[in-house]
């Protein structure tokens, strides 16, 4: 399965990477310890050799070669130090004094390392060569075999600990991989079910509040939104199926009537015209539904710009003024500066829908008022009337698609006007309140105010 492979490679890469980094750091640290230890020991040895050499040369300067020879012999006899090596060599490269069997071959270097015969095993010594007088050469040194052994032990120990650290980090990596895979498996199983079309499963949270929980919570929010959208689509298709059938049935009826009256041109024409009107109504309903669906899907935000709500309300009032007058209504505007960020056409449609409702349902002699205002972070546009209003129990329902009050079933309208208003309000991050205007209805659209 490709997904499992991907997990393995990612986590394993991570584990190996960490192991390498860990081992690298351990190696650097070990190298440093080794270097410090080694150089400390080396300095100690050299200091001892220099001190001994200095003491002997002092005797040479005071009493010549004979004094030096005596000093060497006394030193070797009185202070037996197993590790100390002294040899005085004359011009013919013969040992004059000291504890070496033969003169060291080295005659050029000042400091050198010398293989010496020892029991039970041979060992290595570090030796300083200095001239004593014109003919003789003095060799002073120390057996450093112990130091070399220590060095080896330290190096080996360090190497082993690096290897151990490397192995441990690989092990930890593998464990982490297992843990990650287990937690990812929960997410993948949910994803697999969603792919199969079931939007109900949610990723369980471990309660730890860690990155995985946050990811799971984000995914769950995404799935919630997704099922909301799918439900919306389902609702629209149900609504289309249900509410387009009625006008389509009427349309069909009209066309059948037309066929029945085909012998009379006048009747045929009348029926065909009525059928066309019915058809236009179907198309309008269909467009309103699609528009609501489109708005709810949130695609329209791309067209957002600064909108002067007061100017827009003024346009709408001017647009509806003749209609209001024709119906014997007074339409008044009470407009204060109000701006928001939004879609001008949709907001115009909203105000038109609210005004249309108010004008349609307010009896002659009534007043319809449009107001805009802004305060704090909100801007609002209100349409109120002194008509019959909406009974409190019905106020929530009127914003549903196709819901129409008993009293208004006979008047023209799609039953989509207010649900479109609600969709547009939601798209803009606002709300629609319907309240009692005592008497009448007060519809208030509240939107976030445009910030400079």
């Amino acid at each position, binding site marked *: 399965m490709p997904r499992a492979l991907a997990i393995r490679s990612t986590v394993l890469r991570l584990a190996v990477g960490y192991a390498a980094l860990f081992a690298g750091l351990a190696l650097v640290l070990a190298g440093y310890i080794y270097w410090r230890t080694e150089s400390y020991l080396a300095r100690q040895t050299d200091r001892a050799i220099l001190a001994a050499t200095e003491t002997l040369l002092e005797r040479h300067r005071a009493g010549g070669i004979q004094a030096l020879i005596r000093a060497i012999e006394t030193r070797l006899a009185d202070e037996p130090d197993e590790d100390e090596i002294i040899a005085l060599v004359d011009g013919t490269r013969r040992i004059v004094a000291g504890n070496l069997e033969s003169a060291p071959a080295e005659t050029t270097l000042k400091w050198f390392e010398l293989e010496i015969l020892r029991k039970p095993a041979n060992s290595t010594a570090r030796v300083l060569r200095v001239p004593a007088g014109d003919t003789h050469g003095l060799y002073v040194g120390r057996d450093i075999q112990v130091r070399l052994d220590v060095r080896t032990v330290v190096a080996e120990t360090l190497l082993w600990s690096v290897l151990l650290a490397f192995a441990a980090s690989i092990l930890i990596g593998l464990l982490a991989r297992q843990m990650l895979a287990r937690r990812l498996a929960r997410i993948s199983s949910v994803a697999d079910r969603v792919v199969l079309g079931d939007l109900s499963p949610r990723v369980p949270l471990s309660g730890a509040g860690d990155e995985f929980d946050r990811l799971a919570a984000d995914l769950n929010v995404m799935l919630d939104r997704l099922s909301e959208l799918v439900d919306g689509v389902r609702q629209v298709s149900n609504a289309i199926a249900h509410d387009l059938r009625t006008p389509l049935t009427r349309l069909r009826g009209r066309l059948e009537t037309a066929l029945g009256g085909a012998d009379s041109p006048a009747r045929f024409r009348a029926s065909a015209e009525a059928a066309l009107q019915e058809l236009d109504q179907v198309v*309008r309903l269909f467009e309103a539904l699609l528009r609501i669906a489109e708005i709810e899907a949130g695609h329209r935000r791309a*067209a957002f710009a600064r909108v002067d709500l007061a100017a827009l309300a003024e346009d709408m009032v001017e647009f509806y003024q003749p209609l209001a007058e024709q119906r014997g209504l007074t339409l008044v505007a009470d407009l204060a500066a109000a701006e928001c960020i939004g879609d001008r056409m949709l907001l*115009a449609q909203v105000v038109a829908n609210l005004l*249309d409702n108010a*004008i349609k349902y307010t009896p002659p002699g009534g007043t319809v008022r449009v107001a805009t205002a802004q305060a704090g972070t909100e801007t609002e546009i209100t349409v109120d009337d002194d008509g019959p209003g909406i009974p409190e129990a019905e106020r929530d329902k009127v914003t549903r698609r196709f819901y129409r009050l008993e009293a208004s079933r006979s008047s023209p309208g799609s039953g989509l006007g207010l649900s479109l208003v609600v969709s547009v309000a939601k798209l803009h991050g606002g709300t629609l309140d319907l309240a009692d205007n005592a008497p009448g209805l007060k519809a208030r659209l509240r939107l976030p105010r445009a910030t400079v």
Partner: protein
Amino acid sequence: MRFLLVEDDLEVARFVIKGLSEAGHAVEHAPDGREGLYRATGEAFDALIVDRMLPGGIDGLTMIETLRRTGSVTPVLILSALAQVDERVRGLKAGGDDYLTKPFAFAELQARLEAILRRGHAKAVETVLRVADLELDLLSREVRRAGRRLDLLPRELRLLEYLMRHAGQVVTRTMLLEAVWDYHFDPQTNVIDVHVSRLRQKIDKGFPRPLLHTIRGAGYSLRPEP
């Protein structure tokens, strides 16, 4: 007039061709974008009517864009099943002159076609518009009929100006809403009708011959003869 219709749906094509032929125009038909582009670049047409979604690799918008790149300025009316505002904007950006959503009434198609043809032949700067004895002075914004001055509100003036600029043509309610109010939405009630009837009250009442006519099932037309 000679038109090219690029439309893959044969039934829609037949309907449009029949309507335009009856109005006395010659209509050529191309069933896909490739042939449409070929004919539009090779022959002279007064206007193109192009369906937005076409089979055969070249869709309507691509066809129009390509055509415009060759320097063609032939007016184009786009027909489309995509009604969203941004689709409309995309259509106009591609080089279309107007955008008509399916399904449409034939009268709407004809009215919009006439409007874009008129746009191509914009007359030199006019300062006075005249239809019969009705006059609109564009500079002083004064309206006179038979020498008598009429009082019009600013919006009524704009409505009248649009009708006069399209005198003799049929203009639909949607065209008026877009052109005079600069809004593109669906006014649920026939608000436009109320505006037009007020205008009619002012320009036709008291004169023997009405100029502003209602065209059944289509819209309005301002012209001397009924």
